[in-house]
């Protein structure tokens, strides 16, 4: 499951949730996105396979956009662009 991120992506902040089990990464991601401005991109690192379902669903639910996803041998990296209304 991979969705290449745009090559010109500018990351505003990185959140490392390695070792944390869902829903903890979801909770922390929502907090981190809350500190960003609309259009900013959050890079998120997770190791819980549940994140592959939870994080895209959370982004959809909040009105943010998942602009990239890489699943690298047990480590998932997400790039989420903060939406206008979140």
């Amino acid at each position, binding site marked *: 499951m991979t969705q290449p991120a745009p090559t010109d992506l500018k990351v505003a902040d990185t959140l490392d949730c390695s070792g*944390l*089990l*869902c*829903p*903890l990464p979801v*909770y922390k991601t929502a907090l981190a996105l809350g500190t960003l401005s609309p259009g900013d991109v959050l890079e998120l690192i997770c190791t819980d396979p549940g994140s592959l379902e*939870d994080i895209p*669903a*959370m982004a959809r*639910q909040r009105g943010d956009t998942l602009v990239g996803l890489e699943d690298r041998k047990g480590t998932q990296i997400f790039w989420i662009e903060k939406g206008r209304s979140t």
Partner: protein
Amino acid sequence: MTTDLREATLGTNASLRRHDDVRELLPGVANPTPLVRLNHVPDRPLDLYLKLEWLNPFGSVKDRAAAYLLDGLRRRGRLDGRELVEASSGNTAIALAALANLEGTRLTVTIPDGVPEEKKVLLRMLGAEVWETPDDLCPVDHPKDGAIALARSLAASEGGTRYALANQYENPDNVRAHYETTGPEIWSQTEGRIRWFFAGFGTCGTLTGVGRYLKERDPAVRIVAIEPQPGHRLPGLKSFAEAKEPGILDRSVIDEVLRVDDEPAYAMTERLWSEESLMAGPSTGAIVHAALQVDIPAGDVVVGISPDSGRNYVSYFAERLGDRGLPQI
């Protein structure tokens, strides 16, 4: 770290109500919370008593569970070098935070949507870290239990070395607290004459523990559970149409489940304040409203739990009151 100066004091003397340690105020058969009869709200002769759990030292029925949960964790060595974490709509966390302070440990609480600001402030005053958690936190698998899921994930993360989960929803120590204290207190205070017991669905420690104790003493005692409607605003109560049933719930001790809407629960809470001068919280209103809907024979002794004080819900009451009680010019 606080200093312990107990050796310099007069010493505990329970008959003078002088105590060296606030934990000595925790309830039990020798120190029960009061039963108070309702003399104005019932519309017919009825021996309906409320057990005023808000007179516990940390303000609610959850003082009992918290003390037992903490004691169990300590005995099993789960507290060694760990902080506490728990999912709570406030009252369990408040008691846990207070007791944890005295143990020199710290509480992180995951608190669900709909908990009034008052409780969150009380928790922070007690030194707890408060993580407000939306009920629908888990976007994929989303029973209305985001706070519980978050507390579990905190306890499981970092190899389980940082946090010990009190786990009031699954921990039999919660039931034991009520089996060993609340149940025997009620039996003793009613001189064995209790016929009906009313309490709300929440963690179900009270219903299961008290229900089990009373049924063992007299199988004819009717145990009635009060359940709110989905989407309710009655903190501390749970609708199992939207939340998972706690593992400690034993339905075999429950004779009947009554569902209560928010409006009559809040209306009854107002009546408890204005007619009985009992400053109880909305879950007490729900329990009393439900009890008054049941056809209870005259002379039967009825006990309902009054889990906490209305002082925890002042902001809710202010919304409800609007400009009532203010001068109208």
